[in-house]
């Protein structure tokens, strides 16, 4: 992907030099060869550090919240999934379209630097090259849905097969079995909230989990408090998760967060759809659960 790096750099130089943007959000090489890390170039001299390679897996759209109160013009490099995150930010009024210059890269699929780090750290017994990241193997939208300029050939999604197989297996369980299943997987959550921090849908200024007066969710790492955390988080993702898979990727204890998210995606699509979050930006458009109508057929509110 050497020439991709060159193309991105070329655009960055052009935009920063002309003053069209103040910040150019991309990646630089990390400390290890199998590591790339988010990088914000702020002047032409920074551009030489920019790279684009198979480890640029991070969804940079989440970082847009850092700039939401400012006036800077921002260029952002996005892959397919990340571009849906940009739509999320726009729909949630966290960013104005005219402050953004979006460089879309039709994504061939990425490798996970976290997996690679683990493999090379000695913390894993079995080592060997891992292929594409799980989130990329499950990706439905490798080509950006919103961009000002796009790079690379149009890509076929890596995901083949039935999208909700695992969700259906979950639905087929009895409620006792499901309770058992969730008790087991959620009991190991260490409540670091990395899944929230990395999430583009989690753009609230004050998160419910940080509220102290009143404290809605206890801080114990117990099945009860962990359930509470994951139920509330799940509700807040309904209609808003753009399926970038970052939460599951960064979770240090491998909680199957995308399984929970996909159940919500399936339900939102079924009850309020057809709908897939962040697939297109329509000015003033609202995701299903962000809308209130006085003549709502349900009277539960």
């Amino acid at each position, binding site marked *: 992907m050497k020439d991709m790096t060159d193309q991105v750099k070329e655009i960055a130089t052009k935009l920063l030099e002309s003053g069209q943007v103040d910040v150019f959000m991309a990646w630089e090489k*990390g*400390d*290890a060869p199998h*590591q*790339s*890390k*988010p*990088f*914000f170039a702020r002047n032409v001299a920074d551009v030489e550090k920019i790279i684009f390679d198979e480890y640029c897996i*991070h969804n940079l759209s*989440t970082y847009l919240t*850092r700039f939401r109160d400012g006036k800077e013009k921002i260029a952002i490099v996005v892959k397919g999934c990340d571009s849906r995150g940009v739509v999320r930010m726009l729909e949630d009024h966290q960013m104005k379209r005219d402050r953004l210059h979006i460089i879309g890269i039709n994504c061939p699929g990425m490798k996970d*630097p*976290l997996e690679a*780090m*683990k493999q*090379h*750290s*000695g*913390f*894993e*017994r079995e080592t060997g090259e891992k292929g594409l990241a799980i989130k990329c193997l499950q990706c439905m939208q490798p080509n950006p849905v919103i961009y000002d300029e796009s790079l690379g050939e149009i890509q076929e999604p890596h995901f083949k097969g039935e999208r909700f197989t695992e969700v259906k297996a979950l639905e087929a369980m009895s409620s006792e079995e499901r309770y058992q299943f969730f008790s087991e997987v959620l009991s*190991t959550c*260490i*409540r*670091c*909230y*990395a899944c929230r*921090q*990395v999430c583009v849908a989690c753009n609230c200024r004050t998160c419910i989990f*940080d509220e*102290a007066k009143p*404290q809605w969710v*206890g*801080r*114990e*790492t*117990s099945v009860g408090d962990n359930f509470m955390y994951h139920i509330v988080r799940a509700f807040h993702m309904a209609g808003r998760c753009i399926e970038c898979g970052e939460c599951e*990727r*960064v979770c*240090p*204890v*491998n909680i199957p967060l995308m399984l929970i998210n996909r159940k919500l995606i399936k339900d939102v699509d079924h009850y309020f759809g057809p709908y897939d979050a962040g697939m297109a930006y329509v000015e003033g458009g609202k995701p299903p659960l962000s809308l209130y109508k006085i003549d709502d057929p349900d009277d539960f509110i």
Partner: protein
Amino acid sequence: MKILKKNQLDTLWERLARNAELYLPTQKGDQSGFFSYKTLKPEKDTLMLDALNVYLSPKNIVLPQTEMMYSFTHQGQEINLEEVYEDPTPRIIFGLRSCDVKSIDRLDTVFFTRGFVDEYYRSRRENTLLILNACYHPGPNCFCEAMGLSPRESESADIILHDAGEEGYIWVANTEKGRELTGNIEDILEEKEISYPQPRPFTREVDYTGVAEKLKDMFSHPIWHPLSDPCINCGICTYVCPNCYCFDIQVKTRGEEGYRYRCWDSCMYGEYTMMAGGHNPRETGMERFRNRFLHKLEFFTERYGEPLCTGCGRCIAVCPTGINIIEIMEKAKGVEPSA
């Protein structure tokens, strides 16, 4: 010298687990950490004694992520203490690496010195025995030596094991407690002279010398902005760190009953410094990021003479955005003085 044959490991663990809660470095499903011997399922779980280290540090055993402190009942203004949950259960952690033993040392420093003893920590710690598995093959992110410790020696380890391959483990009782335990299981050890394995060198050169002094004048340095740009303040680094000891005290009540517990906290979180009046002295992610490194590499050293990092490399391997403490040290050293 005393040798523990590898085919005796099961017997040893079975014996140790009779009188104590025993923890082993294990891969359990997707997670690796120190898990209780009792909960291990041989058909599913894998022992990690021959791996470099496990992902989740042993800190949880002496400083649990959630720890019950006391329960109470109250009627109006009157409060009755019901139960205090100090936990003196005898525990043995088997197969720790030197960086993790040293980190427990640092926790001791925090919880035992400077005029205050944390009784909850003390009751656990004083009843925990540490069995070190000496390192002969440092990993790519290991830099313990640079942080002032030896990967094969430790004053605080009660027993030190040296993996001599087929020959078994060389068993060295290192403290009074360690000698006592050795006495109880002597019948499964063998007496034989073998040679110690050859250590491999560290792959990365790290030099902490001068970093604390350098950081002293760098609080307002602009370098913290680009350094912290990628960080999402997720706090994973502080939760996996065997040295980070921050906790919060919380209470839960139901009617007239309630209990107080403590749980890990992290300076990476905004809520951590949030004050009652709504002011937050560390408002931005950059300030929290800076605090993590200054506390580890400067403040702690100033107060206790040693850094709050034992070079285990965990935070380097787990950071989702590629932040690397070694790189931070290098960058700090490279900064022009008084910039």
